[in-house]
C-alpha cells in the first residue's frame, strides 16, 4: 500500500518534469514546479516516515511490466529503504521550499525546472528499486538529471568541465556496480534482489564484489580518491540542487553500498571492515584538510561532504568488522552511528548549502574573501548558518555531536576484535576521526567568521539584503531539526532499530523508556549521553549568569571604534582573511599533504612596492591517480590517430595482414 503511494509520488514528479518543459518559460512556472515538488515530496516523507516508525506495511513488493522484459521492474520497501526515503524526501521537500524563493533569481529556469523533479524522482526510485537492472537504471537516471542541473549554468567558466568530470566519474561508478551485479547475478542473469539474496556468492567472489561496490558507490559518495569530481560539480549547480547533491545524493550512494554489502552479500569477512573503515578515516581527514584550504564557500561545503562521508564509512566499516566477528550488539551500535550520521549530515549540509545559496543570491559572491559582515545585513540567515556550523562541527547540544559520539563509542568497543590488523588500525582511525572533528570546528570558525562576521570586504557584501521568507523557512526548519535531533536523539535511535535489526541482527536497547531521555548505547555504567540535560544545564547556567550580571553589574555601554593599536586604517583589507586564518594549519599539515610552498616577495627597504606572497599547493591525489590516466588516454589517442592518415596501399596492407594472420591461425589451429 505504502509502496504504491510512493510510486504514485514518483510518477507525479516525473509528470511534473515533463510538464515543466512547457511551463518553464512562464513566470509562474517556477512557483508551480517547486510547489508541486514540495507537496509531493512532503507526502512521500509522511508515508515513508510512518512506515519507518510504525513498521506497518513494510516489505511491500511490486513489479511493473517495464524495464527488462522477462524480469519487469521490481520495487521493494523495507526498513532500510524507508529510512533512506525519509532522508531523501526531507531533503527534497526543504530544497523545493527553498527553491520557491531562490528559484526566482534563476536566470535560465528552462535549464533547471525540467530536471529538478526528475532528479528527485530518480533518487526515490534508486531507494525503491528491487532488482539490479532497475537499480542501475534509476541510479544512472539520477546521475544524468543531476548532470543536466550541473550544466544549467554552462556558460560560467569551469562548469562545463565540472559536469564532464562528474558524468565520467558517475559512469565509471555505474560500470563498477554493473560488474558487481554481474558477479552477483551469475551467468544466467537472475537480477532480482530476492534471487541474489537467496544465493549469496562464495567468499572470494564476495570480496571482489565488495571492492567493486566500494568503487561504484564510493565514486558517487565521494570516497577518497574518487572524490575529485565532487567539489567541482556540487558547487556548479544552483544552490538548492547543490544541497540535494551534497546532502542527499551522496546518501543514496551510501544506501547503495549498504544495500549491496550488508543485505545482498551475505556474511562479511573481517578485512572488509578494515578496508572500509580505513578508507573512511583517510577520506574524513583529507576532506577536512581540503576544506580548510578552500575559500570558495560552496566548495568548502562540498569538501566537508567528503569528510562526513568518511565518518559514515568509518561507522559502516566498524559495523562490518563487528558483524564478521559475531559481535552483534557492537555492530548494531556502529551501524546506528553511521545511519544516524547519514540523517544528521543530510540535515545540516542542506541547511549550510541553503545559507550559502542565500548569500550567493544576496551578494552574487561565493568567494569568502569578498564577503564579511553579513551578520548585520542578513541576521536570520547568519543565525541559521551558525546553527548549521555548530552542528557540523560536532558541538553539543546539536545533532552532529551525537552521531560522532556514537561512532567514538563504537570505536571504544573494538578492542574486543580478535584480528591484530584491526587492533592496530582502529585506534589510528579513531585518531583520524578526532583530528578531523577538531579541524572541522576550525574550518567552520573560518567559514562563518570570515563570511558573516567582521567588516564587509566588498560593496556587494555591504549592500546585501536579507533573503526571502521561503528560503528562511526552509533554513529554520532544518536548524530546528538540528537542535531537536541533538537534544532528543533517543527517538531517532529507536526509529533506526528495525533497520539495524534487519541488517545486523540486533538493535540498541530501547531508548525512550530511559529516565531523563538519556541515550545509552550499551550499558548505563559504560557510557551515556544526555543532550536534553546538557541543553538544560547550559540554558540554566547562561540564564543564571546573565540574570546575575544584569541584576548586579553595571549596564552601562559605550560604542567606540575598535582598538587599532595606534595604526588607524579603516580599510577592511586589514582583517584576517580566510587564507590567513588557515595559514597556521597549512603550515602544520600542508607541506606533507599538499606540498604547499609559500613564496614571499618582500620589496627592499625604501621601495614602496607592495610585498607579495604566493602559496602554491598541489593535489597529490590528482597527480597520482588521475593525471596518469588522462595522459595514457591522450597518448594512445595520439598514437592511434596516425592510422587516420595512411595511404590506401597501407590500408590494403592492413587487410592483407588480417587475411594472412587468420589463414595462419587456421593452418596452426588444425
Amino acid at each position, binding site marked *: 500500500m505504502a509502496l504504491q503511494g510512493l510510486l504514485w509520488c514518483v510518477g507525479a514528479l516525473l509528470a511534473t518534469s515533463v510538464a515543466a518543459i512547457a511551463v518553464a518559460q512562464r513566470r509562474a512556472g517556477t512557483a508551480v514546479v517547486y510547489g508541486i515538488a514540495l507537496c509531493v515530496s512532503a507526502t512521500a516523507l509522511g508515508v515513508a516516515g510512518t512506515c519507518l516508525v510504525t513498521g506497518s506495511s513494510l516489505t511491500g513488493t511490486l513489479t511493473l*511490466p*517495464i*524495464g*527488462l*522484459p*522477462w524480469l519487469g521492474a521490481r520495487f521493494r520497501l523495507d526498513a532500510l529503504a524507508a529510512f533512506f526515503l525519509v532522508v531523501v524526501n526531507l531533503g527534497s521537500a526543504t530544497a523545493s521550499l527553498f527553491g520557491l524563493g531562490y528559484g526566482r533569481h534563476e536566470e535560465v529556469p528552462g535549464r533547471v525546472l525540467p530536471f529538478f523533479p526528475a532528479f528527485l524522482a530518480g533518487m526515490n526510485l534508486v531507494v525503491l528499486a528491487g532488482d*539490479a*537492472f532497475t537499480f*542501475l*537504471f*534509476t541510479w*544512472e*537516471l539520477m546521475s*544524468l538529471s543531476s548532470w543536466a542541473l550541473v*550544466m544549467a549554468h*554552462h*556558460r560560467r567558466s569551469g562548469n*562545463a*568541465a565540472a*559536469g*564532464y568530470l562528474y*558524468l*565520467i566519474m558517475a*559512469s*565509471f561508478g555505474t*560500470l563498477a556496480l*554493473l*560488474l558487481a*551485479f*554481474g*558477479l552477483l*547475478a*551469475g*551467468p*544466467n*542473469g537472475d*537480477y532480482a534482489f530476492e534471487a541474489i539474496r537467496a544465493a549469496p556468492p562464495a567468499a572470494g567472489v564476495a570480496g571482489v564484489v565488495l571492492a567493486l561496490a566500494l568503487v561504484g558507490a564510493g565514486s558517487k559518495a565521494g570516497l577518497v580518491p574518487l572524490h575529485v569530481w565532487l567539489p567541482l560539480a556540487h558547487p556548479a549547480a544552483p544552490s538548492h540542487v547543490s544541497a540535494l547533491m551534497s546532502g542527499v545524493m551522496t546518501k543514496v550512494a551510501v544506501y547503495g553500498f549498504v544495500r549491496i554489502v550488508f543485505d545482498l552479500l551475505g556474511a562479511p569477512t573481517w578485512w572488509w571492515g578494515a578496508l572500509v573503515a580505513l578508507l573512511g578515516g583517510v577520506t574524513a581527514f583529507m576532506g577536512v584538510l581540503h576544506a580548510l584550504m578552500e575559500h570558495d564557500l560552496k566548495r568548502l561545503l562540498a569538501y566537508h561532504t567528503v569528510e562526513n562521508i568518511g565518518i559514515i564509512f568509518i561507522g559502516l566499516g566498524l559495523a562490518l568488522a563487528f558483524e564478521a566477528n559475531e559481535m552483534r550488539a557492537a555492530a548494531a551500535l556502529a551501524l546506528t552511528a553511521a545511519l544516524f550520521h547519514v540523517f544528521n549530515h543530510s540535515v545540516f549540509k542542506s541547511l549550510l548549502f541553503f545559507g550559502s545559496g542565500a548569500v550567493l543570491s544576496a551578494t552574487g559572491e561565493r568567494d569568502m574573501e569578498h564577503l564579511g559582515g553579513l551578520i548585520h545585513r542578513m541576521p536570520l540567515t547568519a543565525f541559521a548558518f551558525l546553527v548549521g556550523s555548530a552542528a557540523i562541527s560536532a558541538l553539543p547540544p546539536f545533532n552532529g555531536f551525537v552521531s560522532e559520539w556514537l561512532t567514538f563509542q563504537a570505536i571504544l568497543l573494538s578492542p574486543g576484535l580478535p584480528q591484530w590488523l584491526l587492533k592496530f588500525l582502529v585506534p589510528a582511525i579513531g585518531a583520524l576521526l578526532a583530528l578531523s572533528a577538531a579541524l572541522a570546528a576550525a574550518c567552520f570558525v573560518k567559514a562563518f567568521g570570515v563570511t558573516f562576521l567582521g567588516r564587509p570586504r566588498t560593496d556587494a557584501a555591504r549592500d546585501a539584503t536579507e533573503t526571502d521568507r521561503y528560503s528562511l523557512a526552509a533554513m529554520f526548519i532544518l536548524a530546528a531539526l538540528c537542535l531537536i535531533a541533538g537534544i532528543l536523539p533517543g527517538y531517532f535511535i529507536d526509529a533506526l532499530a528495525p533497520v539495524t535489526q534487519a541488517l545486523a541482527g540486533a538493535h540498541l536497547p530501547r531508548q525512550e523508556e530511559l529516565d531523563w531521555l538519556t541515550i545509552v548505547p550499551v550499558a548505563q555504567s559504560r557510557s551515556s549521553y544526555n543532550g536534553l540535560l546538557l541543553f538544560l544545564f547550559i540554558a540554566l547556567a547562561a540564564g543564571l549568569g546573565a540574570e546575575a550580571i544584569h541584576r548586579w553589574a553595571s549596564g552601562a555601554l559605550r560604542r567606540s571604534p575598535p582598538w587599532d593599536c595606534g595604526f588607524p586604517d579603516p580599510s577592511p583589507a586589514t582583517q584576517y582573511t580566510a587564507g590567513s586564518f588557515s595559514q597556521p594549519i597549512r603550515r602544520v599539515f600542508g607541506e606533507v599533504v599538499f606540498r604547499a610552498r609559500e613564496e614571499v616577495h618582500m620589496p627592499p627597504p625604501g621601495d614602496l612596492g607592495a610585498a607579495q606572497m604566493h602559496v602554491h599547493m598541489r593535489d597529490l591525489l590528482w597527480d597520482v591517480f588521475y593525471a596518469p590516466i588522462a595522459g595514457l*588516454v*591522450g597518448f*594512445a*589517442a*595520439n598514437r*592511434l*590517430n596516425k*592510422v*587516420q592518415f*595512411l595511404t*590506401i596501399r597501407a*590500408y*590494403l596492407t*592492413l*587487410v592483407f*595482414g*588480417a*587475411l594472412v594472420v*587468420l*589463414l595462419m591461425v*587456421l593452418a596452426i*589451429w*588444425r
Partner: protein
Amino acid sequence: MTDLGSFIVGAVLVIPVVSAALLALLPDDRTTAWLNATAAFLTFISAAVLFLARPSPGRYLIVDDLNVVFIVLSTFVGFTTSVFSASYIAHELETGRLTPLYLRFYHAMYQTLMFGMNLALLSNNVGLMWVAVELSTLTTVLMVGIYRTPAALEAAWKYFLLGSVGIALALFGTILVYLAAHSVVGEGLDAMAWDVLVQNAPQFDPALLNLSFVFLLLGYGTKVGLVPLHAWLPDAHAEGPTPISAVLSGLLLNVALFAVLRFKSIMSANSGALAPGPLMVSLGLLSVIFASFMLYRRTDIKRMFAYSSIEHMGIITFAFGMGGPLANFAGLLHMTLHSLTKSAIFFCVGHIAQVKGTQHMPDIRGLTVSHPVLGWGLVFGVAAIGGLPPMGIFMTEFLIVTTTFARYPVLAVVLGLSLLVALGALLLRLNGLSFGDPHGSAEPAKASFVPIFAHFALVFVAGIWLPPALVIWFQHVANLLG
C-alpha cells in the same frame, strides 16, 4: 497467404526499381524528393505486411524470422531518411552544392541502393546476396563522391578500392561455401540456398567451411567496418551527403553484418568447424577499443560519429560472437537501436552542419543556446548512443557486459572500460558543441524534425518498455542464432 506474401516480396523489390527508373527520368526537382519519400514509404508498408503474410522460401528469395526484422528496420529507416533528405536536399540546392541534374542522379541512386539492400536481405542465395551487396556498394560509392570535391572523390575512391577487395574476398568465400555444399546436396542452385545450406551444414567438410568463413568474415567485415578493415568508413561518412551517411551507418553496415550472421549460423551448425565466436569477439573487441580512442582527436563532426558507428558495430559483433540467448538478444536489440539512434544523430548533424556552414567542430559551439532543438537533440542522441538511461542502449549494454562478466571477466572489463573511454570522448565534444557561448550563425534551421523525433521517441520508449510481441520475436531469433 503465401501468394500474397510473394506478391508483397515482389513489391518490396519492384517498388524501388520502378521508382529509381522514374526518378532518373523525371526532370523536376520539387516533386522528386517527395516521390522518393512516397516510394520509400510504400516499400516500408509492404515490408511491414511481411510480418503477417510470409511466402514459402523460393529458390532465390526467402523470408524468415531473421531477415524480416532486418527488412522492416531497413525500410523504415530508409523511409525516414528519405523524408529528412527532402528538406536536406532542398537546402543543398539553394546553396548550389548540388545541381538538379545531380539531384536526379542522387534520387535514382537512393532507390537503387534501397533495392540492393532489400535484395541482399531477402535473397535465399549466397551468390545473389553477393551481387546485391556489390550493387549497394557501387551505388553508395557513387553517392559518396557526388559533391565532386577532391575530398569527396578521394573518399569515394578509397571506399571503392577497399570495398572491391572486400567483395573479392567475399566472393572467394562464397565459392568455397558452394564447394563445401555441392558435394553434399548436389550441384546447382540448392548448393547456394540458405535453407538447404543450414539444414545440411552438419555434413559439410569442416576445413572448407573454416576457410570460407575466414574469407567471408573479412569480405563482409570490410562492409561492416570492423577494424582493421574499416579505413573507408569514416571518410565515406564524412564526405558524402548526410542522408547517405545516415543510410550507411543505419542500414548498409547492418546488411553486411546480416550476411556474416547467416554464415555464422551455418558455421555453428557444423560441429567439426571451428567456433566462429572467438573470431568475431576478437574483431569486435578490437574495433571497440580502436574506435573509442580514435574518437578523441576528431575535429570533423560527421567523421566522429562514423567512428562511433565502428565502435557500435564492434559491440554488436562482440555480442553475437559471445552467443547465447541473452547476448544474441542484446545484439539484435542493440543493432536495431543503434540504427535508429545513429541515423537520428546524423539527421541532427546534417542540419547543424547546414546552419553553421561547417563540419569543423571547434567552429560549432553553444547549440543549446542558438538552436535549442538541434542542440538538445544532439545531447539526447549522444546520451543515447553513449548508453545512458532512460534510452534503450543502456539495456543492451547492461545485458552484454553482465552476461560476459559472468563468463569471461577480463573481456567484460576491457569492453566496459573502452565503452567508458568512448563515452568520455563523445561527452568532451558534446560539451563544446551543445554548451558554452554560441558561435557562428544563429539563424533558425529550416529543418524537418519529424524523423529525428520519431527515432528518438522509439529509442526512448524502447529503453523503458519493450512490446512483449517484439521481445518474444527477438528471443526466438536469438535462439535461432545459437
